[in-house]
């Protein structure tokens, strides 16, 4: 009975399929239909261009604060692409390209970031959650959704997103433990973009990887190159299949990088160097995927140019539609909606008093 090492059943693996140069590891290449490859590429492009455009709008004062996704498109799109439409999608706030992939309209994003609650506009047949701002708090919701799906004998899975910073929250811990104990079909996707506002990943936790945190729950954990959409897709696919077939949850760490500001209220110059950002420019997920697709012969320079302008038009017309729609969102009294299924008497009194105030004051006390 000497000191003995305890062997732990779960191992932590790392997957990378397309390297920085866009070179392929043939052995690991996932079998993705051409059509899906192209749709993914377009979605990445759209995500990137939309993000850039939002930044412009923000600088012009045409939208409020938002969280750019630039550089992380492969991480969240690759994961979301492994879902069925009927699966549950639970975002944090930096998965815009994946939200759009799942069906969210561009205009709803613009409207939301203009401070209108109406920017949340989830279709009746969609199982997508609105963005969740309190870091890590949404993780456990996915566990509840997944548990419910299994209870209802549906084979839906739930996928939930969060950042590297979120792994420090108690909610992360409790959520992963519950998922493992109840073996719920849920996929935990951590977008490790190396920063939580000004806090580098290296100071967020001393563990070598975030993926290994899965060991605390007896859960499979895997680290992937998050700028390699094939690797992310492959890992997510595997996790989704495991979950759907009753094999329980998985933690996926996507190693990526936040190329832009944390939000438009942030100034990264205060805490990180240009050199670091430059390093990551070389690892751009879109360029890498594009090279792969060209090499594979499913994409051409010509086609790319076509997609470019198609996507730009799509964005422009969404902006136009959003701006037109926002003009109709006049009534501040709408803020009383949706607090309860039925408005209780005291709230009715407040609403009526507010209506009288509005009437007295005319147009002047209106939304910004």
């Amino acid at each position, binding site marked *: 009975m000497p000191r003995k090492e305890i062997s732990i059943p779960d191992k932590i693996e790392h997957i990378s399929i397309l390297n920085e140069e866009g070179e392929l590891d043939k052995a690991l290449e996932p079998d993705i239909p051409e059509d899906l490859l192209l749709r993914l590429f377009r979605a990445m492009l759209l995500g990137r261009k939309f993000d850039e455009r939002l930044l412009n709008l923000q600088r012009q004062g045409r939208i409020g604060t938002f969280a750019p996704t630039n550089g992380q498109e492969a991480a969240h799109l690759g994961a979301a692409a492994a879902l069925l439409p009927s699966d549950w999608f639970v975002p944090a706030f930096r998965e815009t390209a994946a939200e759009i992939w799942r069906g969210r309209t561009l205009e709803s994003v613009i409207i939301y970031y203009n401070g209108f609650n109406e920017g949340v506009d989830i279709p009746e047949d969609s199982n997508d959650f609105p963005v969740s701002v*309190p870091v890590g708090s949404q993780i*456990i919701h996915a*566990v509840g959704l997944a548990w419910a799906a299994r209870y209802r004998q549906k084979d839906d899975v739930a996928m939930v997103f969060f950042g590297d910073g979120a792994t420090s929250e108690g909610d992360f811990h409790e959520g992963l433990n519950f998922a493992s104990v109840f073996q719920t079909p849920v996929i935990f996707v951590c977008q490790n973009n190396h920063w939580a506002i000004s806090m580098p990943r290296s100071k967020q936790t001393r563990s070598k990887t975030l993926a290994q945190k899965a060991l605390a729950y007896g859960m499979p954990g895997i680290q992937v190159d998050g700028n390699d959409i094939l690797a992310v897709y492959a890992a997510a696919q595997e996790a989704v299949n495991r979950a759907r077939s009753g094999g329980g949850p998985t933690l996926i760490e996507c190693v990526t990088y936040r190329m832009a500001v944390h939000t438009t209220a942030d100034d990264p110059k205060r805490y990180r160097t240009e050199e670091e950002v430059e390093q990551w420019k070389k690892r751009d997920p879109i360029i890498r995927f594009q090279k792969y697709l060209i090499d594979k012969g499913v994409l051409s320079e010509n086609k790319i140019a076509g997609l470019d302008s198609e996507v730009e038009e799509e964005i422009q017309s969404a902006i136009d539609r959003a701006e037109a729609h926002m003009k109709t969102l006049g009534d501040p009294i709408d803020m009383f909606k949706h607090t309860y299924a039925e408005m209780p008497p005291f709230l009715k009194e407040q609403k009526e008093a507010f209506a009288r105030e509005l009437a007295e004051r005319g147009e002047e006390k209106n939304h910004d």
Partner: protein
Amino acid sequence: MTKMTMVQALNLALRQEMKNDDGVIVMGEDVGVDGGVFRVTDALIDQFGEDRVLDTPLAETAIVGMAIGMAVYGLKPVCEIQFSGFSYQNFHQIENHAARLRWRSQGRFNVPMVMRTPYGGGVRALEHHSESREVYWAHTPGLKMVIPSGPRNARALLVSAIRDPDPVIFYEPKAIYRAFREEVPEKEEVMPIGKSQIVREGGDLTMISYGAMMRPTLEAAAELKEKDGVEAEVIDLLTIAPLDDELFVQSVQKTGRAVVVHEAPRSFGPAAEIITRLMEKAFYYLEVPIERVTGFDINMPLFSREKAYLPDAKRILRAANKVLTT
């Protein structure tokens, strides 16, 4: 009808609702095999199995957070937090999400969950097991907050809470879990959330309370009648939020005098809101200042002094007499 304790009546409510609706899921620490530390969920697991009665790991945030996910899916989770003193662990899940998801999703999702938890003093328990902090929830928009005062209304209100499309915080006054029995019909019975009740009529004075404090309040009312012939009207709030001010406002418009009783700390406590509503809606009827009889603005002492801390009939009588004689 059978005479039941509140624990039995709550158990009946859960049992019947679970039978009526296979979406009702009971979850929490020790609620399954053990039947709950107060036995409110006794034997539910035998009848409904492990999939309907979840013994969870020890993590309040996850209990409530998981319930939120289940509720959005369309189930009706009833989660137990073992003592209200440990519900602050999950406060953010309630504030950040349960109370907001309907609004935040523009009505697309809602959170028909119940968070049941025993609260209040009177059972000689350990630290953190005896507080009353209903204000934390009552002040939070989007929540409903219910506190029964006896076996029968506990059962009927819990059924309503489970069926309610919005999240309900259900505080169970543990002092009266087994303190007395009432006839509780086997047949389904519901009571509306958001409505208070007159439990004793009278024209001289209005006494407003809820939960375990109803008993000393009614005791005081009986003594007022007996000793002084004073007819006190006693109101049982039943719902703390949304507060039904109509009934107590009407009563005070009639009596002109009021006492509000609760065991929660005084400052920024529930009585303040009740008194303010009376100020707003019955000011011109008030003969004298309203008195509040409450817990003190200190931590609930360990149990050897809990009786001294808690309002009792005598303390309520002192306040009533003050209101009657000034």
